[in-house]
């Protein structure tokens, strides 16, 4: 079990990213950071202010940024390339495929502004299929941290593990659920709540809602297991199968399309030992403008919605 609780404390994941980058920058001269004219939004600019020689604002040219990051990586650099998730993946999918994933280069794509909670900017900027795009690439590993603390745990680990990674986080402030730093291991899930009736598997900041859903279900006498799955690829198959066997029903939740993300990874993991499962996410539609939290509720990612879906699956399990 990893200790996690809902507190009043909010922190932006991007702040975790920039603080982790700066720490790494002091520790390792080979760390270089690239951005594509969103350095103030992704907060890589803070690294750039301290290490101007190792920071490259490529301008609004994501395709080139990925290629340049690849070139730096061939020469021994550990290249972090950042932009909004929509531009950092879809805009330059082929560059990531050909110049980063295929040659297995040491490029860490860290994207911000993923998901529906981008809010006002609307569908053009609400990236809901980035994990799907990155998951299908051989050699690529995909991570969605739950809070700023976890981001600070993830960044040094992916810097020390050779090869490409994709890390996604949202724009909005998110509840801090981890009170202290935990050892992050690629491909390992975190058991946050024990429970035998049903399992909620979540990734990214939705995990906070999953924890709240656990409490809602508890009031109704339902013991839900909560697993946080920061690594969407490679998914923690063992934990998924164990949960399926022990609880007999699964709900996944993610701020991403129900196609190709965590739901896809979990269904694949348990496809040989199926139990009732529901995927909560964006149901194959584009987003829209609005208030971040209102959109999260509207698209079914609130604790109430997760709890309701869990009850549905519990019924299915008993049928």
């Amino acid at each position, binding site marked *: 079990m990893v200790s996690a609780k809902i507190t009043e404390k909010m922190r932006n994941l991007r702040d975790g990213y920039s603080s982790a980058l700066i720490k790494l920058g002091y520790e390792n001269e080979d760390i270089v950071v690239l951005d594509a004219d969103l350095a103030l939004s992704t907060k890589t600019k803070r690294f750039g202010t301290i290490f101007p020689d190792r920071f490259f604002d490529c301008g609004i040219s994501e395709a080139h940024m990925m*290629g340049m990051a690849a070139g730096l990586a061939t020469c021994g650099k550990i290249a972090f390339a950042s932009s909004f998730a929509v531009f950092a993946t879809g805009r330059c999918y082929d560059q990531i495929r050909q110049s980063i994933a295929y040659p297995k280069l040491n490029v860490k794509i860290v994207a911000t502004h993923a998901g529906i909670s981008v809010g006002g900017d609307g569908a053009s900027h609400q990236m809901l299929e980035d994990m799907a795009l990155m998951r299908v690439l051989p050699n690529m590993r995909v991570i969605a941290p739950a809070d700023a603390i976890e981001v600070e745990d993830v960044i040094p680990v992916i810097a020390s593990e050779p090869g490409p990674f994709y890390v996604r986080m949202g724009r909005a402030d998110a509840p801090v659920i981890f009170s202290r730093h935990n050892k992050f291991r690629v491909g390992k899930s975190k058991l946050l709540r024990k429970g035998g009736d049903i399992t909620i598997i979540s990734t990214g900041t939705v995990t906070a809602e999953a924890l709240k859903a656990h409490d809602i279900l508890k009031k109704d006498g339902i013991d839900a297991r909560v697993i946080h799955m920061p690594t969407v690829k490679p998914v923690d198959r063992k934990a998924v199968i164990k949960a399926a066997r022990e609880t007999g029903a699964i709900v996944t939740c993610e701020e991403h399309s129900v196609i190709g993300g965590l739901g896809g990874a979990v269904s694949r993991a348990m496809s040989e030992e199926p139990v009732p499962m529901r995927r909560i996410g964006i149901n194959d539609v584009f987003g829209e403008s609005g208030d971040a939290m209102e959109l999260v509720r509207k698209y079914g990612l609130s604790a109430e919605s997760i709890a309701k879906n869990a009850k549905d699956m519990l019924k299915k399990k008993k049928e």
Partner: protein
Amino acid sequence: MHDKELIKELQRKALLIRKYVVDSVYRAGSGHPGGSLSIADILSCLYFHEMRHDPKNPKWPDRDRLVLSKGHASPALYAALAIAGYFPVEELKNLRKTGHFLQGHPCMLKVPGVDMSTGSLGQGLSVGVGMAMAAKLDNKDYRVFVILGDGETDEGQVWEAAASASHYSLDNIIAILDRNGLQIDGHTEEILNLEPTQWRWRAFGWDVIEIDGHNIEEILDAIHEADKNDKPTLIIAYTIKGKGVSFMEGSLSFHGKPPSEEQYVKAMSELNQAEEELNG
């Protein structure tokens, strides 16, 4: 003036590259002979005279880099690497064959001496910018050569990279444009006009040198001139697609098609004859 023997030797190596290109593509039953033959002289100058590299130590950190952005010309690159000693020339016979390491397009994880995996056009110059920047960061004096196809410069990313190279004043990057005037669907000027090529690149902050891409002396001089520049340099190498094989020269049909058996015999005999004349 360059040493006559050196020129002759580089011409010999270029001919050898051409023979291996024709042979390996013929044996593979597919591949791109036209654009491979057009860069044979350039690769000869680079791998057998200009570039600082060590076939016994392919990952030598101080080596000059070469990014074959027009990755479909891999048969020429593989030939140069094999002749240089990165792997046995016998391997060239296994181009594109299942279970062998010479992929249709260059793969840096499989082929010693390949500095970057390429194949999807338009990406190599960006990679070259990253390599050149790494040299600056590490205070190293290696150079980065990027070979671009002319049709390839239709791709927008090439121009993003061109802007970036001059923005960072990367004087250690030398791009060589294989200006053979043909792309798959036709003449470059008919498909998408590239002219005025030199002024486009100059406007992006590059120095431009125009040469005959089959003239060894001009290639060597251009590289030496590029070394003196304090800007990134583009060498526009006017070339002939299919150069060295009469019926492939200037031919659109040999962009991505191997020779037939009859054509193969004729091509090899032409190249052998050229070799005899050179050694004459």
